[in-house]
């Protein structure tokens, strides 16, 4: 089992989606920490306690994993999100991004901003 504590192993602050938007980007966390851990096989536990997140950052990290070749079934078995009760709704949003279920905001608004 590999454990990634975002606050300790990455940063207490989070930045934009892509590396070119500055430090602490979602792309940097995903490609440097999360994806290598998933590629090693076994369970990956991500502790989200500590930092504050934009939903854009979370979506970029967890919502793009299926595009990178990981299946929904594989992720639902091997990727576990760990959080205290005070991150309950953040964790729930992450689970939705991972499984890509029930988008909570209309697609028209998302596509308009992209």
């Amino acid at each position: 089992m590999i454990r990634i504590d975002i606050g300790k192993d990455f940063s207490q602050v989070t930045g934009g989606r892509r590396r070119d938007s500055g430090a602490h980007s979602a792309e940097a966390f995903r490609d440097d920490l999360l994806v290598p851990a998933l590629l090693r096989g076994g369970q990956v536990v991500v502790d989200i306690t500590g930092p504050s997140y934009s939903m854009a950052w979370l979506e970029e990290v967890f919502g793009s994993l299926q595009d990178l070749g990981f299946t929904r079934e594989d992720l639902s078995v091997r990727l576990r999100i760990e959080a205290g009760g005070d991150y309950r709704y953040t964790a729930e949003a992450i689970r939705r991004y991972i499984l890509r279920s029930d988008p909570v905001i209309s697609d028209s608004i998302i596509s308009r901003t992209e």
Partner: protein
Amino acid sequence: MWEDKAFLGGLLASLLGGALSGAILLAFTNTVLSRIGLRSGDLTARIDDLCRDIERYADIGVLVWSAPAVELGAEGIRLRSTLYGLQRRIELWLDLLDRESWLFRFDAGDDLIALFEAVTGGGFPEPDRAADPARCQDIQRRAAGLVVAIRRSRRNLLHGLF
């Protein structure tokens, strides 16, 4: 004569005992009721604080999304930081209320996540983000719905007495 004295003594003791028991019961009831009332008032104040935070979160979200990121400059950094903090505080408040009071049961998590998505989703942290008037409207609509959902999460006791 002796029997009369014993009877009166017994009567007096019964009266004193009854009065004492009544006083203790009354004091206990008053304490319980005032504690419930105090906790109830405290809960109302906390819910008011949470709703104010949500309204402020929505207002600042609209400020951010009503202008392109490049136009906001340093002010944009301040506003985005405030939004990160408010988003965290809203989640902390909800967890605290849910855990500490059996008079508060929040079941509108979807609405909360949708508001978070509307404010800090999309291109929110990007330096080249464009303004999005439709999103501004969406933010205020979702915030209004969430405030009502939170106020509805407050349960009343004894037909609104507490």
